[in-house]
């Protein structure tokens, strides 16, 4: 029980930190509210789906950016629009901000800007993935020990 409280507090602190760092927004909380006994890991499932699904978007954008001086900005914007949408749907605040920045560079037909912001975006995207993985792992542990406590 003592250990469970500690893990639970750790989880709360971890989550708060993700918010304080500006990595997550209200939408993440919304998703957590959709979890119940029948669907206790919904957020983790959605985030996993997001990372899997967005891989192909990322590689499409990467491919498109290889055209260097003949960038198809419309295509890039369309791809990024999709990516922005799903990032927004999971509450990935910083990733979404980077997406929007990229789209601004697209409208401005700024190749350099696009390249740089895409690089930054990938960093944020990867970093968030690691942090959320750690968060979900702890959440599962807390969930398990809470279940144990209740069954005693």
């Amino acid at each position: 029980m003592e250990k469970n409280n500690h893990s639970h507090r750790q989880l709360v602190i971890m989550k708060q930190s993700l918010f304080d760092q500006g990595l997550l927004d209200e939408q993440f909380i919304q998703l957590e509210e959709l979890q119940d006994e029948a669907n206790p890991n919904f957020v983790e499932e959605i985030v996993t789906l997001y990372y899997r699904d967005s891989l192909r978007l990322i590689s499409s954008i990467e491919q498109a950016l290889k055209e260097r001086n003949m960038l198809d900005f419309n295509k890039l914007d369309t791809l990024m629009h999709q990516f922005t949408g799903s990032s927004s749907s999971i509450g990935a605040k910083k990733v979404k901000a980077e997406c929007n920045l990229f789209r601004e560079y697209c409208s401005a037909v700024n190749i350099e800007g696009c390249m740089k912001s895409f690089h930054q975006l990938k960093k944020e995207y990867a970093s968030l993935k690691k942090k959320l993985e750690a968060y979900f792992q702890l959440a599962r542990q807390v969930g398990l020990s809470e279940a144990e406590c209740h069954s005693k």
Partner: protein
Amino acid sequence: MAISGDVLRDFSPEVVGEFHVLAVDDSFVDRKVIERLLKFTSCKVTVVESGTRALQYLGLDGDTSSIGFDGVKVNMIMTDYSMPGMTGYELLKKIKQESSVFREIPVVVMSSENILTRIDSCLEEGAEEFLLKPVKLSDVKRLTDFILRGEGKQVGGKRSQKRSRSDDFVSSLSTSCSSCDLSSPSPSEISSKKSRL
């Protein structure tokens, strides 16, 4: 209530569990989210990835005659605006252009972009509501509450502009309709009309 149960179930969601929503979105993540949102609100959900598939599901794609098509009962449609191929707006128009009961299905348009002209044109085409993404649980609750209680009746709280409906239509289905206004029949109207044929 001496009205055929089958006809009632078409557009009269007395039981929340039978409130069937068709959700349309090309984004895999968004489909999952909207599905969960709706299931959480105890709705029955069908999710499709395009306007074309939505029309197919409803039997409005021209391959199946919509007259007497008995397959699918949908109480509400929620569609993303920006989709490749057929946009949500185009889907909305197609549904509202139907001369059958399908045009009576409330259609909600969702979009990540807050563009006033877009919102206006959707509402003008008869969209029930325009929701900004990411869609929240409170949005879905408000919608299903309204439509469950509604059938033409005004519910308290904020509502966006709706296409005009006669305020005579009463949600209580035990009221038989003696003089039906054919200009803009409500679902309950249609079902009570059908039962007398």
